[in-house]
Each structure stands twice: as structure tokens, then as C-alpha cells.
């Protein structure tokens, strides 16, 4: 399987002297052809910086980067013509209409697939005759999506793509991503909201302070996140009945109700629960958000013992 995006030890600093800020601190990435790769992290973690290095808007201070087999510095316009890019904060202004802007952007690529502008606009219900400066945020986002998908690029780089879109359009957008991948496109999807990438991403990298801190497929992350399970029984049950069940934690029993966190298969829990009369049950996937928070909570937890110790004294 060929690699579409590869970075090794990518370092990027902003500013000079004492105002120097390290945005990327040895970032390693490998995105294979045809996958939908989620790139997650809070604002300021280095997501947009990474994307701008991939597009040759920024030049890294150290490390290697290859996109579609070529360093962006070398690939130039011919390489970027094979990429569709949706910026995270899309700034559009001017008296020109949305249609004129889209034709202009298509003309930069030699007019490739400009014939599709009208059909894509219809699909996203964008009025091409509206002036750009009069467009709402959601409509500007539609312009951004159309220009990213227009030329059927091999690589889609999408930064916070569904922000500003209503649920119906989010659905349409996801359909467009799926169609693009069905035709072999690779998708690099950046977001600070996990639910945005969870539905379509295969693998997810979590970036923090310019480094990748976790990399897994969504199913594994989902497994780590677990499910919140709640069971109601006809009679009160004892808590120790459920102790020792594999994958079960955070067990709370209150009269006739069991609440717990389940990671892995529910079989063992169900076998035990079946000894009683179960009146109600619910199992909810924990948001990947919770797992995400676990990552960021760690340093805080490390500090807690010190504070406790001080209180005791």
C-alpha cells in the first residue's frame, strides 16, 4: 500500500528569539492511500500548522515531509493540483459572486472540471449568483467544500469541515467524502471535535503540543472508551456479584440499579445479570471525547497527590 502523507520528526517554530514558539515538535505521520485519516487535537495543538506544511505554505525548521511521494517544496503547483483543501477558517470577501469565485479557483487548475460547479452547488443548495460578501458562514463553507471536491482530487485535506453546516448538509458532506474514498481518494480530516471524524475516519491520530500522542483505529479507540451500561433489576442486588467481571469498571450498585463502564464484550456481564430478573437495560457508547479528555487530564492527575499531601499536613 502506498503512502500518501509521510512526515518524520517535523519541527516548526514561529517567531524569533525569546518570542520563539514551537508549534510542531517532532511530528511523525503516515497516511496510506485510500484511508480516511482523522487528525485530532485541541486548538493550538499544531493541526493547522501541519496542514500548512503539507501544502507548502509553511516551511518546516527540521524533519522530512512527503505528500503524494514528493516533498511539498519540490512538488509545487502540479502537486497541489492533485489536492483538494478546505481551510479551517475560510476568509472570503469581495463583490464577485460565489460562481465567479469558483470558476476563478477552477481556472487556477487549468479549468479542470469547472463543468461540475453547477451540479455541486445544487447538491449543497448554494446560490451561485449571490455575492461573496453577502454569504453567511454556512454558505461560505459550501463554497469551500465545492472548491475542495471540484477537481476530483487524489488527496482531500479537510480542516474542521462541518463547522457552520446544518445537520442535513453535514450528512450530504459525509456522503461526498464517502463517494470520494470509494473512487480511491485519501482523506486527511482535521478536527478538535471527535464526533466530527468518528463516523468516517478509519484511523485517528491525536496530536498535542506538536506531537502525536496516540494513534489507533476508531474501533480500538471506541473499545478503550467503552460503554456506559445501566441495568435495572426486579429485586435489589448486591454489588459484589458483579466484581471481577472482565472489562467491567466503575461499578455502582444502588438498590435495584447497576451502573458500570464496560470495555470489550458484554457476554460475561450478561451471563451474570441473567441470574436475576432484568427489567430495563441501556448501553451507551462513551463519546471519544471522554477518551480524549482522559489524555488531557493526565498531567492534572499527576499533580493532585502533591496537593492532597499539603492538605494532610
Amino acid at each position: 500500500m502506498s503512502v500518501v502523507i509521510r512526515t518524520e520528526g517535523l519541527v516548526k517554530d514561529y517567531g524569533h528569539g525569546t518570542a520563539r514558539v514551537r508549534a510542531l515538535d517532532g511530528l511523525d505521520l503516515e497516511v496510506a492511500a485510500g484511508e480516511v485519516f482523522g487528525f485530532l487535537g485541541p486548538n493550538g495543538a499544531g493541526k493547522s500548522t501541519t496542514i500548512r506544511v503539507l501544502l507548502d505554505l509553511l516551511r518546516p525548521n527540521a524533519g522530512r515531509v512527503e505528500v503524494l511521494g514528493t516533498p511539498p517544496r519540490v512538488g509545487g503547483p502540479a502537486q497541489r493540483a492533485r489536492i483538494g483543501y478546505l481551510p479551517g477558517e475560510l476568509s472570503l470577501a469581495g463583490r464577485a459572486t460565489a460562481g465567479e469565485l469558483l470558476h476563478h479557483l477552477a481556472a487556477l487548475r487549468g479549468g479542470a472540471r469547472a463543468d461540475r460547479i453547477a451540479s455541486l452547488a445544487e447538491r449543497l443548495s448554494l446560490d451561485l449568483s449571490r455575492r461573496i460578501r453577502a454569504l453567511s458562514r454556512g454558505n461560505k463553507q459550501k463554497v469551500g467544500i465545492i472548491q475542495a471536491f471540484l477537481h476530483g482530487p487524489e488527496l482531500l485535506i479537510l480542516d474542521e469541515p462541518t463547522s457552520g453546516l446544518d445537520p442535513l448538509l453535514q450528512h450530504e458532506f459525509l456522503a461526498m467524502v464517502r463517494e470520494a474514498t470509494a473512487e480511491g481518494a485519501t482523506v486527511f480530516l482535521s478536527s478538535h471535535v471527535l464526533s466530527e471524524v468518528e463516523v468516517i475516519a478509519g484511523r485517528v491520530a491525536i496530536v498535542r503540543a506538536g506531537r502525536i500522542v496516540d494513534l489507533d483505529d476508531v474501533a480500538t479507540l471506541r473499545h478503550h472508551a467503552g460503554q456506559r451500561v445501566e441495568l435495572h433489576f426486579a429485586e435489589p442486588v448486591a454489588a459484589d456479584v458483579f466484581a471481577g467481571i472482565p472489562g467491567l469498571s466503575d461499578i455502582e450498585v444502588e438498590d435495584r440499579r447497576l451502573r458500570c463502564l464496560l470495555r470489550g464484550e458484554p457476554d460475561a456481564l450478561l451471563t451474570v445479570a441473567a441470574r436475576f430478573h432484568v427489567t430495563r437495560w441501556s448501553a451507551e457508547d462513551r463519546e471519544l471525547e471522554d477518551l480524549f479528555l482522559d489524555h488531557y487530564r493526565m498531567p492534572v492527575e499527576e499533580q493532585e497527590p502533591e496537593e492532597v499531601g499539603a492538605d494532610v499536613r
Partner: protein
Amino acid sequence: MSAEPTTRRPTDTPLPGPPRPGAAPVLRWTVRTHLRTWLGWGVVLAAVSALYISFWPAMGDNQEMQALVDGMPEALVTAMGYDAIGSPAGYLESTVYALLAPILLVVFAVGLGAQLIAGDEEAGLLELESAGAVSRWRLLAESALALVLVTAALAAVVGLVSIAVANLVGMDLRTGAVAGATVGLWLLVLALGNLSFAVGAATGRRGLAVAVGSGVAVAAYVTNALAPLLEGGEWLRRLSPFHWYLGNDPLNEGLGLPGAAALLALALGSVLLAAVVYDRRDLGV
């Protein structure tokens, strides 16, 4: 709406080949975006030039005016360039070619030069183009070309209006000299506009570009006007782009080639240097 997703890409549409850049897409878009403003400047320049030239019968072609100027302190007359205000060429130079047109056009060109790369970059408007299938050299070259063309067009407006209105009010001018002075005016404006454009492209900072462009313009104007009043100030005057433009007495003698060459060198040199920096630096897009 997802009933027929597979029909999204008609299979009979040919796959895009390698990108063939259309005819100057960045230039065409820049013109499209700014055309209304530029037309407005054209109207203002034409009106102001016509207005001042039409005062000739009352002001310049009149012994009292020359007498008034003769009575002014010599230093003031030199500084204001009123030496020959009683002649048609002298009047046209003092009012339009050495004063109103360069001031208005330099304000225009310095502002536009700072806007074209740096202003758009600060506003985030260049992101899609910079990340798109166009090289930095091409983006810069086509933006610079827009500045070249619009300043040429506006200088031509001044030249054509001057010749036409001068004819109407019976001023005796050499059309060739006016044409030469118009080319000189264009080169002056282009040099200062390009300087602002170059600082903006090299740094991405619009405010700095305006400051450098207008600072150099004011210094050049003041140096050209006041250097003759200083003892041995002639060498200082030779550093001024205004002197490069006006030093040859263009409305009588036509454009001086050394001055024109110096203006052209400043215009081209600043943009070439900027292109080298722009190609290497980080873009704030």
C-alpha cells in the same frame, strides 16, 4: 438526496490532465475584484486634471500671475516649481504633472501595492490561491502585472485628458513632450507602488508596506523640492525619484533617459528582490 450518489461524476467526463494554467487567472481575478475602484480613480484623475488645466486662461496665460510669482521669494518659487508658471508647459507641470497627478497616483499605487499581496494575506484571502495549483512566482508576477497595467492606464488618462483639455483652452504644448512626461509619471508611480508591493510581498505586512512606500514618496518629494535651496544640495536631489522623473524638464524636453532608467530599475529591482524572499518565506495566508 442520497438516492443517486453514483451519478455524481459522469463517467464520460475526461479526467483532468496536468494543470494547464488559463490565461493569467490571478491577473484576471485581481482586475475583476478591483475594477470598480480603479474606474473611480480614473474618473477623479480625469476630472481634477481637466479642472486645473481649464484654469489656464485665467491663471497662467496672464501677466499678473507671472508678476505675482516674480514677487514671491525665490526660494519658495523654486521649491514649488513655479519658475515657469507663465508658460503652458510650466503651468501644466506646476499644477498637474509635478503636483496633483503624482500625489494622487502615488497614494493610489502605494495603497494598492500594499494591498495586493500583504493586505490580502493579512485578511486570509490568499489562502485558497496559495494552497492551489499556482506557484508563488506566478501569483506574485501576475499581481505585479496588475499594478503595472492599472498605473499605466491611469497615467494614460492623465496624459490624454491633459492633451485634450490643453487643446480646448488653446495651450501651446508639444504632444510628444507631454507623452514623454506621461511615461515618466507612470514610471515614478510604478516605482513607488512596486516598492510598497515589494515590502508587502517580502514581509506579509500591509502597514509596513504602506509606511515604507509613502515614507520614500514623501522623502523623495521633499528632497526634490528643497535640495536646490541647500548649498551644494544638487547631489542630494539626484537621489530623489521625483528628480529622476522631473529633472529633465519633461514637458519641454521630453523624458530624460537616465531618469527613466533609474525609475525602471527601482520598479523592477524591488519586485525581483521581493519575489526571492516571497518564494522562501512562510505565508500567513
